[in-house]
């Protein structure tokens, strides 16, 4: 051990003499250099909520534009061009900067805690994944001020995105900043899969992992294989726009359908990797608040895996009207019908878990039930797309808009809300107010269904998505107005979680910061066997896992009559939170520096290539700084008390 320490010390002399590893930093520096998965998870969550506000404002502007019919262009609030930029940014932000990173936030914070690990496999890479996501996300949003936001829709179809039709920098911003965000997703996927597969506590076999961990694993595998396909599509577009290549140039025989295929080969796994983390979350909340184990655990696991595999075989159902031919259409129709089966299995299992349980209807449970209900509606409208003849009518109408908001907002975001209410005491040490929580939930449910329910009708009436204006004579006015009123309720409802956080925190401080206890929900999984908020070192001792729902089985034993009897309260058997002798990964500047090198490279690719040279220099310096800094430092560790 002393040899090791000496070796590390001598390696330290390699560093450039600046930005050396900070020793137990405080305040802002602590957050900038942290490699702690919990802090990174919190930063992911906070950034996502920040982007949610921006994306939400864009959404409200869309609803404001469509709140009234307009007969002439002067009647409209925004011009068609501005409107295109607003809905493009709304879609892009919500998909890439809200739902995906919210999944990453929960994955980062919870994966090590639910598998009994000290941290993720590669803590510095973890920090890099976050910072590079933030750099990409902020860069995308600067496009509002630097020449115009993108206007190609979130799937950015060629050839509309070529220089010929789209000469300003909006599309470049979309392309380059999402490439940068993609780097973070990819490194995150490698890191989290390694963590789940390799860093489980003793005894935690694969089939003792909580369903949340399984869904995260499938999600990260989807990311691992889907992101490179999007990357290729984006590189082709970059080559076309910046270096005059011809991939999507029809004059040279380029094929715009290539973009659609590449995008949707990424894009369909993408929609599953957005919903699966939420499925995982409610698979933890529903059993806890139904006071029952999850119904059909292996079915939950294998249906998740099945979704992961089948998600790769259905991409062309986004392209039924693009002329891909009757054989492809039939094959993808059938595949799309089949993929509804594993999802149906999940919904059945959640309902069966609740069946006969002693249901506790708190906010987390309400949001979970909200997901099950609303995702079912979205799933049913989704299956209706599998019928290609019907889909031909629905393509590019508000019916599609209604469908994917039911699965992504009514599904994914409701699941994340459940997750916030459920894990908030573990993360911050106090519960969110149930009273405001109920308001939060009911306003969101009412607002959500008022906004997106009518869109089914509008779509079937033939209202195209993305249209910036409609006239009174088209008959879309009534339902659009309902939707716009609903969106206001929905907006206030969604934002009230932040209000709740502030309010509950104030009350908690006013009460003198009472201890919420390690196990406020009397829950099942091992993250509740440690103190709240989570100690910096997670577990005092690595737990040894003896069964699925291990923590629950430590609190209850089977009686001779077949029932269960409580033998302990969570608080009695929880670890005391003593981090003595625990060594933690040391903080580092290099993940942040490496991410910052993407700033000049990114803007260079958008504006002038010269700027990429200092960017590349910074990149190389950061890589060397990273590589020469020892991965760990035995003298520094936040766990040294």
């Amino acid at each position, binding site marked *: *051990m002393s040899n*090791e320490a000496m070796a590390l010390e001598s*390696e330290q002399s390699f560093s450039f003499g600046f930005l050396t590893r900070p020793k137990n930093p405080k305040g802002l520096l602590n957050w900038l250099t942290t490699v702690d998965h919990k802090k990174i998870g919190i930063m992911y969550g906070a950034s996502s909520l920040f982007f949610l506000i921006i994306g939400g404002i864009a959404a409200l502007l869309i609803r404001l534009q469509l709140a009234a019919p307009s007969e002439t262009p002067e009647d409209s609030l925004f011009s068609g061009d501005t409107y295109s930029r607003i809905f493009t940014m709304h879609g892009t932000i919500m998909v890439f900067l809200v739902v995906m990173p919210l999944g990453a936030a929960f994955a980062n914070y919870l994966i090590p805690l639910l598998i009994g690990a*000290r*941290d993720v*496999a*590669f*803590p*510095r*890479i973890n920090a890099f994944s976050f910072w590079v996501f933030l750099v990409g996300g902020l860069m995308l949003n600067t496009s509002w001020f630097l020449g115009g936001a993108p206007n190609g829709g979130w799937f950015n179809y060629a050839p509309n995105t070529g220089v010929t039709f789209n000469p300003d920098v909006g599309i470049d911003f979309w392309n380059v900043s999402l490439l940068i965000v993609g780097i973070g997703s*990819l490194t995150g*996927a*490698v*890191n989290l*899969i*390694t963590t789940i*597969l*390799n*860093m*489980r506590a*003793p005894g*935690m076999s694969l089939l003792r992992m909580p369903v949340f961990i399984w869904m995260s694993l499938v999600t990260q595998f989807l990311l*691992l*294989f*889907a*992101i*490179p*396909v999007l*990357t*290729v*599509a984006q*590189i*082709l577009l970059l*080559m076309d726009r910046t*270096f*005059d*290549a*011809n*991939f999507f140039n029809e*004059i*040279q*025989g*380029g*094929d715009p359908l*290539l973009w659609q295929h*590449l995008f949707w*080969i990424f894009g369909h796994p993408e929609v599953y990797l957005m919903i699966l983390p939420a499925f995982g979350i409610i698979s933890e909340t529903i059993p806890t608040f139904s006071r029952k184990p999850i119904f059909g655990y292996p079915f939950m696991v294998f249906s998740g895996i099945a979704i992961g595999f089948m998600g790769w075989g259905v991409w062309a159902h986004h392209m039924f009207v693009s002329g891909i031919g009757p054989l492809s259409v039939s094959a993808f129709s059938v595949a799309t019908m089949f993929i509804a089966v594993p999802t149906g299995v999940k919904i059945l299992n959640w309902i069966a878990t609740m069946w006969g349980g002693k249901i506790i209807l708190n906010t987390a449970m309400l949001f979970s039930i909200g997901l099950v209900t609303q995702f079912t509606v979205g799933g049913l409208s989704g299956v209706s797309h599998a019928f290609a003849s019907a889909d031909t009518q629905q393509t590019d109408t508000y019916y599609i808009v209604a469908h994917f908001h039911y699965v992504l907002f009514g599904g994914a975001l409701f699941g994340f809300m459940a997750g916030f209410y459920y894990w908030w005491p573990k993360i911050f040490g106090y519960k969110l107010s149930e009273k405001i929580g109920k308001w939060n939930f009911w306003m969101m449910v009412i607002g959500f269904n008022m906004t997106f329910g009518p869109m089914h009708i509008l779509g079937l009436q033939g209202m195209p998505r993305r249209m910036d204006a409609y006239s009174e004579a088209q008959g879309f006015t009534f339902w659009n107005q309902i939707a716009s009123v609903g969106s206001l309720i929905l907006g206030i409802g969604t934002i009230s979680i932040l209000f709740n956080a502030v309010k509950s925190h104030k009350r908690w401080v006013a009460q003198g910061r009472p201890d919420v206890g390690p196990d406020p929900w009397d829950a099942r999984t091992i993250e509740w066997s440690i103190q709240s908020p989570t100690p910096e070192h997670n577990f*005092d*001792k*690595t737990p*040894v896992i003896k069964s699925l729902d291990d923590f629950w089985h430590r609190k209850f034993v089977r009686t001779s009559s077949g029932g269960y009897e409580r033998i302990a309260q969570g608080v009695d058997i929880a670890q005391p939170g003593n981090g003595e*002798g*625990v*060594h933690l*990964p040391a903080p580092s500047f290099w993940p942040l520096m490496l991410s910052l090198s993407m700033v000049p490279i990114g803007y260079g690719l958008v504006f002038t290539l010269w700027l990429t040279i200092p960017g590349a220099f910074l990149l190389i310096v950061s*890589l060397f700084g*990273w*590589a020469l800094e020892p*991965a*760990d430092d035995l003298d520094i560790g936040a766990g040294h008390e």
Partner: protein
Amino acid sequence: MSDETVQLQTQTDEPDAEEHEHEEHGSEEHASSLGLSNMKLAMWLFLGSECLLFGALISTYLLSKENFLREVQAGNPEVVSTLDKLNEVDPEKYAEVIETNSVFPIFDIPFTSASSFILLMSSLTMVLAHKAISEADYKNSRIWLAATALLGSTFLAGQVYEFTVFFREGIYFDGNLFGSAFYTLTGFHGVHVSGGILMLLALLILSSRGKLKQDRAETVELVGLYWHFVDIVWVLIFTIVYLIP
């Protein structure tokens, strides 16, 4: 690329925890659930992801080439005129391309076969480098690492030469669809080879400073995994782009 490992001191309820604690500093294998080190697992995952990257690029090449040839056959003047320079430099080759409606006359297959062979041989030297370091034979491991880097560089030089010849014949990146797709695919592979050479050089520097000993043989193995992967991708590209009509 970086040598990122987390070695965590853990206290477990197991009776032999004390013994484990010391071993864990030497290697991570005891700590991992799969019995495979974190770095190796991560490398395999990364390579899995790379398969999709090259898969998409190769598909793009095949599609773009077919579309290019279709337009040439149809006599699309915008496309045919991109071959004017070739007609000027080498009328015979030009005539062959038009006649056979294929891009194969443009390639110099014997030359590329030779450079492919060189790249394949570098996988052999990579294996020898790993074998040497596993046996604590540091001198030979350095020789084989240098040989691998040299063979890789020779391959790259061959690619640069090939690109120069094509450029003289008027096959430009921004000229036609074939040019765009060919340079993107082979260029991406070239960038991967360059990355591999940089890793090999870093290993050489570490080794010559005495910082790459037997206990870190796995680092060499990991670079080796990447190197073999890049080789295998080239076998695919060579077969699909240069050989299969």
